[in-house]
């Protein structure tokens, strides 16, 4: 990797100061994408601001009927949390299925969503559950947060501080992993809250998206039989050596059915 300045602030305020001071600063959360990128010399930031010791960004709590997860909370902590398992077991299961144990013990929810890898799991979790992204500047609905391929609504110098998840009546996440990388080829988070059904798909396109046709089918009848075909435009879906767009489109429907069945227990 190339040389860079390294900063390890203890507070969010100090982190923002360091970031503003840097010529081309880069925030690091768990570093599970950033470190490999640096090692391959594919990025050359002037400074890295490591949030690892910013305690105010860590932890899981319940607040006003929502589950609030600090940005620097690791996947392993979410997966093991009794609170998450009690309130939104689908979210704990999603975290349990990310990467491998090493990744889960370093990688964080804030880092994952700020990176917005098109095959990451958390974007589907956030959109599917209708989460709200908290930053040092504002609150952004998940539907507006994930903009495109590795792109988010975050402005320059804006840092994710937490994610709050409303508690659904039922939810489940079903993932078809890439056998090599174990990222999602297709991952679907399905959630039912009152009369609202949300179906969020990751891995299949340039970024997470909602499948409104399937949502409509499920709104009146939340059962696997009602899922039907995905309405995604095949031309907008990813196709690569692991899975064609047509296969991914098919898997959206299959994974949704499995998620609905799991949600219905």
């Amino acid at each position, binding site marked *: 990797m190339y040389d860079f300045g390294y900063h390890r602030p203890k507070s969010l305020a100090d982190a923002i100061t360091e970031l503003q001071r840097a010529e081309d600063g880069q925030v690091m959360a768990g570093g599970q994408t950033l470190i490999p990128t640096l090692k*391959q*010399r594919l990025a050359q930031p002037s400074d890295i601001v490591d949030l690892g010791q910013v305690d105010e960004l860590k932890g899981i709590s319940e607040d006003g009927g929502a589950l609030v997860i600090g940005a620097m909370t690791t996947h392993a902590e979410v997966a093991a949390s009794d609170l998450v398992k009690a309130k939104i077991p689908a979210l704990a299961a999603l975290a349990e299925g990310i990467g491998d144990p090493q990744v889960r013990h370093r990688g964080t929810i804030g880092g994952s969503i700020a990176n917005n890898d098109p095959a990451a799991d958390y974007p589907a979790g956030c959109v599917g559950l209708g989460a709200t992204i908290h930053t040092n500047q504002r609150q952004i609905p998940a539907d507006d947060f994930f903009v495109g391929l590795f792109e988010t609504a975050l402005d320059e110098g804006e840092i994710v501080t937490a994610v709050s998840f409303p508690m659904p009546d039922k939810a489940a996440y079903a993932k*078809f992993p*890439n*056998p*090599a*990388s174990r*990222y999602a080829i297709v991952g679907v988070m399905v959630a039912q809250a009152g009369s609202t059904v949300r179906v969020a798909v990751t891995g299949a396109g340039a970024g997470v998206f909602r499948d409104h046709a399937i949502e409509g089918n499920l709104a009146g009848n939340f059962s696997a039989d009602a899922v039907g075909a995905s309405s995604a435009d095949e031309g907008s879906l990813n196709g690569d*050596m*692991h*899975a*064609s767009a047509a*296969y991914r489109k*098919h*898997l959206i429907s*299959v994974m949704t059915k499995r998620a609905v069945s799991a949600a219905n227990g």
Partner: protein
Amino acid sequence: MPDGSVGQAVKRREDQRFLTGKGRYVDDLHRQGELAAVFVRSTHAHATVRNVDKSAAMQSPGVVAIFVGSDMEEDSIGSLPCGWTVTDRHGEPHKSPPHFPLIRDKVRYVGDHVAVVLAETLEQARDAAELVEVDYEELPANVSPAAAMGAPLLHEEAPDNLCYDWVLGEEEAINEAFSKAHHVTKVDLVNNRLIPNAMEPRAAIAEYDSGTEDYTLWSTSQNPHVLRLILSAFVTGIPETKLRIIAPDVGGGFGSKIYCYAEETVCLWACKRVGRPVRWTGDRSEAFLADAHGRDHVTHVELAMDEKGEFLGLKVDTTANMGAYLSNFASCVPTYLYATLLAGQYRTPVVYCNVKAVFTNTAPVDAYRGAGRPEATYVLERTIEVAARELGVDPAELRKRNFIQPDQFPYQTPVALTYDIGDYEASLNKAMSMIDHAGFAARKAEAKARGKLRGIGFSAYIEACGIAPSSVVGSLGAGVGLWESAQVRFNATGTVSVLTGSHAHGQGHETTFSQVVADTLGVPIENVEIVHGDTGQVPMGMGTYGSRSLAVGGSAIMRACGKVIDKGKKIAAHLLEASVEDIEFKDGNFTVAGTDKTKSMAEIAFTAYVPHNYPEDLEPGLDETAFYDPLNFTYPAGTHICEVEIDPETGVTEIVDWVAVDDFGKVINPMIVEGQVHGGIAQGMGQALLEHGVYDESGQLLTGSYMDYCMPRADDLPFFRVGLTETACTHNPLGVKGCGEAGAIAAPPAIINAVTDALGVLHMDMPATPEKVWRLAQQAAAAE
């Protein structure tokens, strides 16, 4: 039976250091004043290099030297040779174009070696390597073996990109056999390119002593003496007496560390040129790009049968991808390790095989676990399965109908091999019993009720191991002999140092060989030490590959032990005042026959080194060297059966059961054998379901990391059920055959036979990825 005897599952002695992080690998070693080497690799699959501008890079901090091909040419460093010359169908030697360690004119694959940067630290060398400006004139590239003969030329020396067009068998005879056919089964199949992934990447450290003019090269080699021979005789001209090669602990090889590679050659040359030790450790990306790959065949096969389903003839037409250059033993893999195995376990009277080996703009391809034999087994076992389905015959029954029978050994195949012994039906029957073949229909029905498609697949494989009789391989074009050496050196205190030309890189030789020695000489296993991997200590040897270590290296050890015992008898006879003919050796004691007069092995060893009371005409010392050249190949064989379940909605294949019944001859350590079987199946399963080295049309490697190249993981595999049958090898003193490659050879057709059985289709190419399987499941459902 004393602890550690032959046949016991002795825990691996080497695991203490491997499992506690105390192994010593090349990259763990450091030499004073060492420089780090980083290679500038081609980013193009095919290009003329017009210029290499190193001026900016030379200004980079810490840079000591940057070398290109012409620098090596100045010092008369030669081409990396191919050690096996195949003679083509016209009697001409194969085309072996130059393969210089640093390219001189053109690059021919992505990862080819353009220049080397030597700097004080690795990071400095990397920084500088980025500043080396290479002026490429791009040329059109081809990565497909099928298209190679009409593709842009890689080497002037090889018209049509053809390395050789080779034939085994008589065209007239095969045509006659086919003319009598009642049914001909035809299959087109691809044996997918694999990229070896030893846990430890390749590494080298080279050091030159200007006082003694000695070179030392630490290398991740499976065969340090072979590497020394190649480097001395063909590449550098350094006398063997001045070149010591040490291959310390090596973390896996699977064939990929047999060869003499560009990187270690450059380090060896450069260390003298700059007067400082030079180290290089490949990173994983470099391993993907530039380790020798495996397989990559395209084949059309036809099997002729009579009305009873008896095989009349087998005709095979294969195009084998050699990659951009001919790696050291690449030429023999798709010929003498492939076509010669096409009789399999069967009495097929006529076999005809044509192999065209071609150059493409891809990494060189060479032997990888099984080497030719997995390709042959896949061709045969896939074709027989298709034949059984076409004829409506039970696949086990069709195999049995054609098996070579136990009373037919020694059996001369139509493809040059003489099988010494075997009982193929015994293995098949045992495997069928273990998997409860009779219950399969019920299991399939039960799976269907759960929405799963269940299939069963057989693979009755044979391999030729214990390579190989030197006279045989010499007559076929090998540039080396394939014997092995051993030295059994008693110390005065009764401990034994055993020096072997075999090399262990995960196989557990330190345990298996110790068991053999402890058992043969009647000494405690703790007293035996195995020494290997250092040309400065061990007599010239030929190394480890082709499941040869125990059959050939172990036999050499047995022979050296025999010499020790013979000498011990003379010493004992003197001490016991008896004639040598009356001395019997048993369980570590020399005894005068019919008496209780006895001397232990330890007493004899002590006397040999402290010869105060000693035969006048006998040399002191107890230290014997032996060489063993095998009389024949060994022929491990067996049957694997697997059952899979396919989820038709996703196309995911799950292996739900696996039985392996292998005949490895005598087994020294059943635990180590079982471990080898497990590892081999895992690799074969990787080939069948997961692994595929893929280049895009421009020659960029698409599967250049674990993000895209899928290695098998524990949760991809079932619990294997392993059984053995035994027919002892008839021609080596241990009766052993070898077990290292069997799983990788047997597994791929077993899986594809099971997957296609589940889907109700005749054939599909590996790897059986979920999308491919899903598409076939859709077609099958539509057809129903």
